């Protein structure tokens, strides 16, 4: 049974490899549909296996619901020992089902959506690769393996956002996503280092493993470890959260998510709605036993999450691209999730994660359907009156919007309401005033959510006519079955999915919470958060009111007033509108602060390189040339001079001697005679001397 775990993870990988190597030929020979079928089947089978194992888990004893498999001992460095280990426990089971389930639906949808693209094989290969990485992330049994999946989904996000890389803007968006992600990952890595260091200082020299069970045991002793007089859980809690802000698009590292809409719509649905962006929430939920030891870190998470929720929601007011509205909506909803886990309501956060996956995927795929119908148009100002023309899309979109707005009866209501309640209650436990502030922010954000979603609905689907040219209007048609079936299924889940998490005030035990209890109960008991049914009803009431107000305001402005009415209002608040429309100029600020300063530094370095280093090199070259010239001179004047001198000398001597050769015999005679004569004299003298 454990071996099936590997299968879940590996099947998408195999699908990715098949599409990556043979996919081009398969697409050419048959059609892109075959690639899609290969990809969809691999992940669907993973889902079926996961579901089977989920049922197995249910049949197990509640306290021992764990299926693990250890492949081999991967890293052993010093006293750090990391295994390649996968686990299926309630938390990972929920994640796996969401990822593979929603993932399979999106794979199916993609077959229809991408039917005219040239590189479908590449798309499906990347999509499967992403599924593989995400599954590794959620099924990893230790922090390092999870980080592998963490990085893997970041990579696939880059590949898929920049899928149409021939367009420079799209490719740049991919790069932005990856780089911003990386900044967050830096925080994550720092947290890891502190963690390892801290563990080795309390575990007495034995092997450090980063498996979650081990970490849970040791988390109690980690409280006593301090770096720079800050408790270790706080340090790593905040550092890991920084990683989460990058991956899950919270303040300040959210800027990549809106740009990521440059990728194909199914990608936005899968990665940036249902799965990858939720990795941060999952991570905190997984490490709950560390976070509960640090109220400070939890408070930070709550505040940042709540602030992001409201901040992103306001931006949804002024966006005109249908996908961008949904992108900011995702950021906002993620803020809700972080507020949940920050209030130690871990299962609530995961619950909202799941319901959000349903309705956000439905919304994105519905948007894809709209774009498909509008022949690629994404600007809502050019839409309108689509209600009658693409009914299936309209109704599913409407259902999902009601869910996200938090209308009772739909899944979003239950999950969102629980978050509001828990954040409020956490104030009296450890978050203090921050908790109340967070609660207020979240409540307003809920209102805004309802408002902007229905603004979107009214502008896109209502109105008297479609605000585009005739050619586009004629082409409007409902999407094929492969797409609409998925929409319907997701819409259904957006309603029904909430009922497994009914809160206790309705008199039933939340199935969801019960399922996840073994994971979280130990941690939740550390922080004593009070419960009050009265407060819960009150807050539920408040959230419904907020949602109703939001929808009504949108109705007034956009339905009654119509599109023109909206425009007049815009001119009235034109200045504020301008700022909101431009996303509070955050991207521009980042650009100046960070990108430009990096550019300045690199320019300075390039100057250094050009003048100093090149200067030195040139100087060396000049010196060499100088020496060469000098040598040349020496060679020319000294060496050659010597040689010439010798030659001259010989010539001179020769000429002098030559003058002896007069050619006149008398001179020769003279020399001979005098020579002989002198010789005789010499002999005479020598004889004389010798005889002496």
């Amino acid at each position: 049974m454990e071996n099936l775990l590997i299968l879940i993870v590996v099947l998408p990988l195999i699908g990715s490899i098949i599409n990556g190597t043979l996919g081009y030929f398969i697409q050419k020979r048959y059609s892109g549909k075959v690639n899609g079928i290969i990809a969809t089947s691999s992940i669907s089978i993973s889902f079926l296996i996961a579901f089977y194992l989920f049922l197995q888990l249910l049949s197990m004893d509640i306290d021992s619901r764990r299926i693990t498999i250890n492949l081999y001992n991967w890293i052993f460095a010093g006293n750090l020992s990391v295994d390649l280990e996968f686990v299926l426990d309630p938390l990972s089971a929920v994640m796996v089902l969401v990822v593979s389930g929603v993932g399979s639906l999106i794979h199916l949808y993609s077959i229809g959506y991408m039917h005219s693209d040239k590189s479908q094989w590449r798309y499906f290969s990347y999509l499967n690769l992403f599924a593989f990485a995400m599954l590794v992330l959620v099924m990893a049994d230790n922090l390092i393996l999870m980080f592998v999946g963490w990085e893997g989904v970041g990579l696939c996000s880059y590949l898929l956002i920049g899928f149409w890389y021939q367009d420079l803007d799209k490719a740049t968006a991919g790069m932005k996503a990856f780089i911003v992600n990386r900044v967050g990952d830096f925080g994550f890595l720092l947290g890891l280092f502190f963690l390892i260091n801290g563990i080795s200082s309390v575990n007495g020299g034995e092997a450090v493993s980063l498996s979650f069970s081990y970490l849970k045991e040791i988390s109690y002793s980690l409280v006593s470890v301090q770096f720079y007089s800050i408790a270790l859980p706080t340090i790593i809690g905040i550092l890991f959260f920084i990683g989460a802000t990058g991956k899950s698009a919270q303040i300040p590292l959210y800027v990549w998510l809106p740009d990521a809409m440059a990728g194909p719509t199914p990608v936005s649905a899968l990665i940036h709605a249902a799965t990858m962006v939720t990795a941060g929430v999952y991570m905190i939920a997984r490490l709950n036993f560390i976070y509960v030891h640090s109220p400070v870190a939890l408070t930070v998470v709550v505040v940042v999450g709540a602030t992001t929720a409201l901040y992103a929601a306001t931006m949804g007011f002024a966006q005109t691209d249908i996908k961008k509205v949904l992108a900011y909506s995702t950021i906002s909803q993620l803020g809700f999730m972080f507020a949940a886990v920050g209030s130690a309501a871990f299962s609530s956060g995961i619950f909202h994660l799941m319901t959000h996956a349903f309705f956000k995927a439905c919304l994105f795929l519905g948007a894809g359907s709209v774009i498909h119908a509008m022949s690629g148009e994404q600007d809502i100002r050019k839409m309108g009156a689509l209600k009658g023309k693409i009914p299936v899309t309209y109704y599913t979109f409407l259902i999902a919007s009601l869910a996200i707005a938090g209308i009772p009866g739909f899944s979003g209501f239950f999950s969102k309401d629980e978050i509001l309640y828990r954040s409020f209650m956490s104030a009296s436990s450890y978050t203090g005033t921050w908790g109340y502030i967070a609660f207020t922010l979240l409540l307003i954000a809920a209102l805004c959510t309802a408002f902007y979603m229905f603004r979107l609905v009214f502008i896109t689907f209502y109105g008297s006519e479609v605000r585009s040219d005739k050619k586009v209007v004629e082409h409007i048609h409902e999407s094929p079955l492969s797409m609409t079936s998925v929409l319907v299924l997701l819409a259904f889940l957006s309603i029904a999915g909430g009922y497994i998490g009914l809160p206790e005030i309705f008199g039933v035990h939340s199935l969801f919470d019960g399922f996840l209890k073994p994971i979280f109960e130990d941690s939740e008991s550390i922080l004593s958060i009070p419960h009050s049914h009265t407060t819960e009803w009150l807050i539920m009431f408040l959230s419904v009111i907020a949602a109703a107000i939001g929808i009504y305001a949108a109705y007034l402005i956009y339905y009654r007033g119509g599109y023109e009415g909206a425009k007049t209002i815009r001119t009235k608040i034109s200045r504020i509108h301008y700022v909101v429309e431009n996303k509070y100029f955050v991207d521009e600020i980042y650009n100046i602060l960070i990108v430009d300063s990096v550019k300045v530094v690199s320019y300075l370095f390039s100057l250094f390189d050009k003048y100093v280093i090149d200067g030195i090199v040139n100087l060396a070259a000049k010196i060499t040339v100088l020496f060469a010239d000098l040598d040349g001179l020496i060679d020319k004047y000294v060496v050659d001079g010597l040689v010439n001198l010798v030659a001259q000398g010989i010539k001179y001597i020769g000429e002098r001697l030559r003058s002896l050769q007069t050619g006149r015999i008398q001179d020769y005679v003279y020399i001979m005679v005098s020579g002989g004569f002198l010789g005789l004299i010499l002999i005479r003298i020598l004889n004389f001397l010798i005889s002496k």
Partner: protein
Amino acid sequence: MQLTAQEFLILAAFLFSTGIYIILTRQNAIAILMGVELILNSVNINFVTFDRFVLGKIDGNVAAIINIMLAASEVAVVLAIVIGIFRKTKSVEADRLDTLKG
């Protein structure tokens, strides 16, 4: 008083030196040849003197005769050469005959 060898020998020496002087000094090729003749004669005198006064043999005379013969043939050849040169270069100046120069 008797004649002594030294007197003859001094005379021969004088003739020899004069012959050297003539060879070195004169410009005319024929004059140079005359100097050679003078030397040859002084040698002859030497031969005969030694023969007569010191040795008492006859070989010196024989040598002198042979010498005269050689001188004769040598002069013949040399003068033929000089005439040939004169035909070629129209001069017998020793200074002109310097093609061995250099």
